[in-house]
């Protein structure tokens, strides 16, 4: 390739481009940086911050986050393990259900398939928490208020509604592979466990991680179903922190955001596919 000469016009273009890039980066980085530095502040209250950044830095907030629950008001450690429990269980059950649904909807043609497809489409058009009053009454009837299992039930049971991404992935596996396995005498169950799953490791990882990540950021449902402070999840806890505990909020957020951010950077390619393929729910 011929090297182009740096004309004044080009130089101006470069300058403009890089200024725009720097502007963009500042807009997106600054709030994150602000939160991270705030989590390292020595004083906790928002009122003690002179301007954006703390006066003195220390790791104390992170230590307090786990060791000092301010007389039982903000037991972050309990919230953390509550969320971990909910996330692990619902990732396990939710993944199984959503993979099965996606696989069956992709590979089988049966009576009622179109009904299921249309029903899920219509269900997706209702406002997400429209049925929350009903969920609350159902959980009361089942005696699951203030129990973490209520969340696990709900997250796992409604996970199959998002089967489109998984279905799209199974659609892309050539049919001949399944036919060959069937000819070799494998039952449909064996085809699923011994042929499909090993071929779909990346989809499996993606599904587990997205199912796992959701309970960490859902506020509405746990806020409604869990009344006892010791039963809260991290998201509800952070939501209820007052301004006087701003540094605690920042530290608690940073602590759960870092793993999720790393996860997203690893999965960014899958997520782009999911964005374009499964853009049904908006």
């Amino acid at each position, binding site marked *: 390739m011929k090297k182009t000469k740096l004309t004044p016009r*080009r130089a101006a273009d*470069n300058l403009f*481009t890089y200024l*725009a*890039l720097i502007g*963009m*980066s500042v*807009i*997106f*980085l600054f*709030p*994150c940086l*602000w939160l991270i530095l705030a989590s390292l502040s020595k004083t906790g209250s*928002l009122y003690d911050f*002179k301007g*954006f950044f703390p006066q003195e830095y220390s790791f104390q907030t992170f230590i307090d986050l786990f060791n000092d629950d301010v007389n039982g008001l903000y037991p972050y450690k309990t919230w953390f393990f509550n969320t971990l429990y909910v996330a692990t269980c619902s990732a396990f059950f939710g993944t199984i*259900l959503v993979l*099965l*649904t996606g696989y*069956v909807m992709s590979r*089988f043609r*049966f009576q009622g398939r179109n009904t*299921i497809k249309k*029903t*899920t*489409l219509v*269900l997706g*058009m*209702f*406002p*997400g*928490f*429209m*049925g*929350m*009053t*009903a*969920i609350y*009454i*159902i959980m009361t*009837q089942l005696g699951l208020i203030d129990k973490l299992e209520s969340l696990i*039930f709900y997250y*796992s*049971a409604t996970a*199959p509604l998002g089967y489109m991404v998984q279905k799209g992935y199974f659609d892309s596996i050539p*049919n001949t592979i399944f036919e060959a396995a069937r000819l070799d005498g494998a039952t*449909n169950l064996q085809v699923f466990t011994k042929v499909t799953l090993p071929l779909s490791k990346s989809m499996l990882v993606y599904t587990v991680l997205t199912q796992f990540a959701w309970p*960490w*950021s859902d506020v509405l449902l746990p806020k409604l179903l869990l009344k006892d402070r010791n039963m809260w999840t991290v998201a509800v806890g952070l*939501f209820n922190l007052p*301004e006087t505990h701003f540094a605690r909020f920042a530290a608690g*957020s940073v602590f*759960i*955001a870092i793993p999720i951010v790393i996860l*997203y*950077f690893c999965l960014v390619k899958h997520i782009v596919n999911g*964005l*374009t393929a499964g853009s049904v*729910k*908006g």
Partner: protein
Amino acid sequence: MKQKIQNVGHFLRWTPWQVKLSMLVMGLGQLCYGQIVKGLFYLACFGLILTYFITTGFADFIGFFTLGTNEENLWLGIPGDNSLTMLILGLFSIFILIFTVVLYVTNVKDVVYTARQAEQGKPIHKFRQTLETAADDKFHMSALTVPVVGVSIFSILPIVFMILIAFTDLGGDVVYPKLASWSFSAWKKILSLGKIGSTFVKILGWNIVWAICSTALNFIVGLGMALLLDKRNVKGSKFWRAFPILAYAIPGFISMLGFKYMFSQSGPINYCLDQAGLMRIFFLTNDASAKWWARGIGLFVNMWISAPSIMLMATGILSNIDTSLYEAASLDGASGFVQFKKITLPFVVFSTTPVLISQFVGNFNNFGIFFFLREGVISNYADYFLASDTDLLINWLYKLSVDNNYYSIGAAISLIIFLITASLSLMVYVRSAAYKQEDTFQ
């Protein structure tokens, strides 16, 4: 019709006594054919369903229509009926009824199949074989049972419940111990000129403005970033791209709460204004002057959270444009701007139209932004009914039905939101080619 009756008559004459037994009591016929486990399973289901209906189910079913007849009487110590619970339990009994019918039909079909096998002298299926069929020929049915039951209970039942609630007078003054009844009062209130009706019109107007502005802003910023990073003179675009992705990856509620602190009354921005000798600004506070500040901040925060995903998508689309188009255009002497206008923009707009509409739907129902930025704000000064001047319909729905127990009005608003969302989404499906060609693709 006559033909059908004859068919039924013929069927009854043909069937052996085991089938008739199974039609009477589920599972008995299977037991008589020696299919012990399956028979016991059906029998157990039959017993459970029967006990359910005798103990509570039948009363629940009746309660669905009456919504309660006994009002609480504290003097006599009689506990009253709770219309809300009765409605959902009644609905549940209807679901069980449907399930019973489905189970009954499979039971009869199953025993008829066995009877045919026996008639032709074939061996009757053992339990092992039944399991094998479930794992093979009927794999799709076995696999979908749990998802279908789960979704029915935790998604369909609640939604049907809310649809029904829209046609009762539950909520507001009519909560336990008062009894509710079926009525159209919620719709009358929304469509009338009262306080609720005027709030609805105001919120709907702002909701539409919000959906258009936020979708346009997110698209312009997202597309702009994608084009910027795609420029030939940008070095290290991967590095630059990481910043928007960082914003995208942080859980939404953390970003939104973070911005709430940033713009709060005693937050850093107001502190800086103070230091500069300026007045503090009510950004998100419950104050009449905060209206347009809060709306603007909402647009910005939503852009901060959503534009990166548009950027990622647009980057993918841009990489699909045939580069020879640009080469041909340069040969013809088209300038960079003309190339952008004639090639890039039409291509991007064409391929993102379905996404654009679903983004519009998503923004129309964007609950999080104003929930987190202005939680609990109710603008009494501006004559809003249990809503703030920044609330979207969906925020109002939450405040009505979850915070304040205005069930029927909330449910009616859910239905209106559904109608808007559904008609917009229908446009997506009509337009999206992938949906039409799904079966030809495989």
